[in-house]
């Protein structure tokens, strides 16, 4: 859409120097860089099969006002801006595809307020899982902040903005549901507050005038509408009793059905699952596998987590979970018992204590490269999509034996929503031909998921385009109008959502 940007990389060296000086005047020379080492590490996604970009500057603001000054400069000079915290979306969402400024938000990592009475924490947008979990544990050990199976350096607010997941998502919905309100700087430099913070000094609620308090201007937009600088996140009491179980099912159909039945009880905090091959990886079996699925090996391995205020409450919940699993034909094993048979105990033992490195999940083929295609599917379609994707994997020569693929699922909000995700693991040593095969397979999976009604999330440009292809024209028109209104010069993360 719209105007072509003048990419800084193409400008003269003199102009680059001027822009550097202006950025340095805003944040201090210590926090702006156009050094070769810095630009290289911020230009590529070190994990995925996506193409690298090219950054011209990396800037680290400390305050909302500094972000504002950077945005005004960028808008005036038509310089692309890519917000960045950890680059851990596994979707290359923070790759500077058209050059410009990478805005590394990590210096904005402070907790600004904890309101115990109204149960929220107000944080700056560069805060990581490690920062926020460490802070809550130190100062408010009786409170729980929702987190997910992601590494500690993951950007907390960035994950919420991109419909991430949490360990309380079965109970309350995906990560975006935990956001009360944002502060953001628009591409044109204005500061906006959403939710209750829009018209009240309190950050306790998502709704204001109009409904949903404009938080939708930033959630799911992949940093293309502005730079979120603060967010209020819901907190919960840490219940003293907790149980974690593995729930195995012989078929994915049966497994997903039990998950949905468990979801409807309203007593579960979190349910997630992996295909059988990935269950083996988590259990620590040596790669590559030399045999296919063994007799009696579950096709779907889930883990189920719930908490309680009293021992009796936990017992009652456990009984419900056991009954539903048994009735559905699944097998329940206490987490602590289940991991006894795992050959590699080092990582799995941390699963209850998030965040977690999850090295096997990303580095599955021991080559440190992976990409998924995932999204929000109608939960009733999970098994159907799984079977369709199985055929695509087979077509491209990926088998669950050997270096396996991962089929991941997280059911959320009492079964109203859920993410399904299909991974391909590769190596940084893969040949261009192999990388192209990975890409083609992922694209076909994405197309199949879309055909089954899935909205793709954390989507690199190709997959973002798949989303737009099936989007209602009237809705699309509004989306484009909003984008034009907020970012008239198309400076925010250009090339990412590609509408």
């Amino acid at each position: 859409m719209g105007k072509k940007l003048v990419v800084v990389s193409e400008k003269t060296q003199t102009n680059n120097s001027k822009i550097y000086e202006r950025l340095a005047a805003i944040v201090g020379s210590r926090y702006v860089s156009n050094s070769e080492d810095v630009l290289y590490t911020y230009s590529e996604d070190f994990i995925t099969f996506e193409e690298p970009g090219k950054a011209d500057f990396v800037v680290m603001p400390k305050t909302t006002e500094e972000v504002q000054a950077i945005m005004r400069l960028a808008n005036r000079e038509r310089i692309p801006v890519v917000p960045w915290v950890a680059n851990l979306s596994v979707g290359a969402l923070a790759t500077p595809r058209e050059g410009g400024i990478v805005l590394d938000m990590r210096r904005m990592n402070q907790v600004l307020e904890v309101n115990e009475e109204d149960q929220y924490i107000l944080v700056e947008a560069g805060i990581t899982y490690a920062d926020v979990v460490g802070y809550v544990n130190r100062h408010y050990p009786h409170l729980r902040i929702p987190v997910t199976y992601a590494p500690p350096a993951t950007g907390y607010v960035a994950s919420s903005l991109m419909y991430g997941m949490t360990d309380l998502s079965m109970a309350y919905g995906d990560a975006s549901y935990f956001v009360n309100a944002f502060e953001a700087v628009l591409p044109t430099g204005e500061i906006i507050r959403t939710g209750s913070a829009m018209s009240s000094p309190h950050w306790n609620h998502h709704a204001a005038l109009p409904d949903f308090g404009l938080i939708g201007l930033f959630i799911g937009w992949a940093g293309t509408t502005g730079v979120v600088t603060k967010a209020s996140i819901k907190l919960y009491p840490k219940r003293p009793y907790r149980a974690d179980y593995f729930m195995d099912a012989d078929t994915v159909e049966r497994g997903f059905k039990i998950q949905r039945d468990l979801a409807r009880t309203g007593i579960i905090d979190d349910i997630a699952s992996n295909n059988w091959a990935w269950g083996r990886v988590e259990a620590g079996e040596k790669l590559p596998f030399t045999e296919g699925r063994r007799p009696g090996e579950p096709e779907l391995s889930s883990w189920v987590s719930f908490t309680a205020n009293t021992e009796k409450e936990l017992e009652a919940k456990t009984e419900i979970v056991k009954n539903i699993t048994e009735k559905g034909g699944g097998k329940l094993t206490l987490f602590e018992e289940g991991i006894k048979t795992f050959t590699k105990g080092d990582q799995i033992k941390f699963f209850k204590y998030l965040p977690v490195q999850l090295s096997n999940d990303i580095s599955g083929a021991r080559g440190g490269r992976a990409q998924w295609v995932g999204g929000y599917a109608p939960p009733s379609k999970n098994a159907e999509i799984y079977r369709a994707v199985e055929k695509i994997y087979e077509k491209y020569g990926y088998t669950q034996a050997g270096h396996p693929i991962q089929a991941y699922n997280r059911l959320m909000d009492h079964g109203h929503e859920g993410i399904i995700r299909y991974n391909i693991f590769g190596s940084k040593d893969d040949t261009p031909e192999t990388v192209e095969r990975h890409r083609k397979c992922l694209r076909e999976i994405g197309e199949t998921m879309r055909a089954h009604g899935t909205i793709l999330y954390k989507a690199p440009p190709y997959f973002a385009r798949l989303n737009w292809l099936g989007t209602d024209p009237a809705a699309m028109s509004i989306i484009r109008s909003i984008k034009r209104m907020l970012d008239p010069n198309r400076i925010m993360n250009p090339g990412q959502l590609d509408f």
Partner: protein
Amino acid sequence: MGYPNSFKHIEDKLKASNVPQQCIHCGTCRTWYQSKFWNPVCPSGQWKNFDPYYLSGKMQLAMGLLKGRIKWSKAIANPFFECTLCGNCAEQCHVVETDGTRPIYELAIPLLEAVRADAVAHGFGPDEHKRFAEAIATKHNPYDEKHEERTAWLKEAIGETKLSKKPDYVYFVGCTASYRQKNIAIATARVFKKLGLNFTVMEEEYCCGSPLLRTGRWDLAREVAKHNIEEVEKTGATMIITSCAGCYKVWTHDYAKENYGKVLGVEHNFKVLHTTELLSDFLNKGKLKLNGSVKAKVTYHDPCHMGRNLGEKGLYEAPRNLLKAIPGIELVEMERNRAVAWCCGAGGGVKSAFPDFALWTGGERIKEALNTGASMVASACPFCWRNLDDSARAMGAKLDVADVVELVDRSLQ
């Protein structure tokens, strides 16, 4: 993918474990993994903020170099050198093989040291490192001090310069205790004398090679390693005692066949003990009696080179045992201790090449020590002593710095 010469000694291990490929840039290397408060661990990253200064960024640059996507330049080299090589990043990495081994935990530091050697081979690396390497070549110490004055402290320590001709122990003093922190050498020799130890100090002791190995200048490291081993052999002693964590790592770890011994072309069979290890053993056997009171609330700083850099062989309890045994000392712990101790900021050639970074890192440690309510921070490394004291002074902090051996000496008086 062709590895440079500086990688040859670890090439097989790197290939077998797919390092650095397996790094997924997840940033687990930045904070104390699975701790309650997720404290920061990486001085380099916390100081510079930008991605290349964390281990994940260095891995990304290393991959870029190995794949030929980037070439050596001053800018590319800088993140590898503005780093204390403390290894706290690698300590956190839980990329794990199916047999339970942790390849990045085991190989990150050797890899970073090999990358530094490759940078030096291409003409990069700080000038300060080049200068101290030249000083080691000509005067056998990085401080450019006169070699003949290496043992000048001995007379002050014990009133004599001629020691046993048939010693059981060689006290390998190291350059920093010989020329800068003589207080540690003096206290060590005094304690040894009080204990009646049959020891000597070598007039022809050279730099152990630690500054060279850590900064990618391996050719000269080979020469000093060979020289020092020959000199110790000449004394007829079978045991080496060192009061320096850096020397301790070199003698116990770097000279070992399974580590750098092969690439350095050296081998030895000496038993090597850190002073605190020897004294703690004497304490347990009743040979050391600490009766004198030292009234202080003390926190102990674990030197990287005798702690996590040695993996399972890290020495954590010996110095603590001594401190606990000294009457009047109340030992309190900092949050980050033992294998996750925050670095003092002096190591990896940082003190000479990046003095502001060294002081900032030391300052962070001083703040942590002050948070315990301690009036003194004790350590077991002259280089840590130096930088912690410099940092405390720069901050105007009311915190004394001492070596554990100095406190033992005071207790024996």
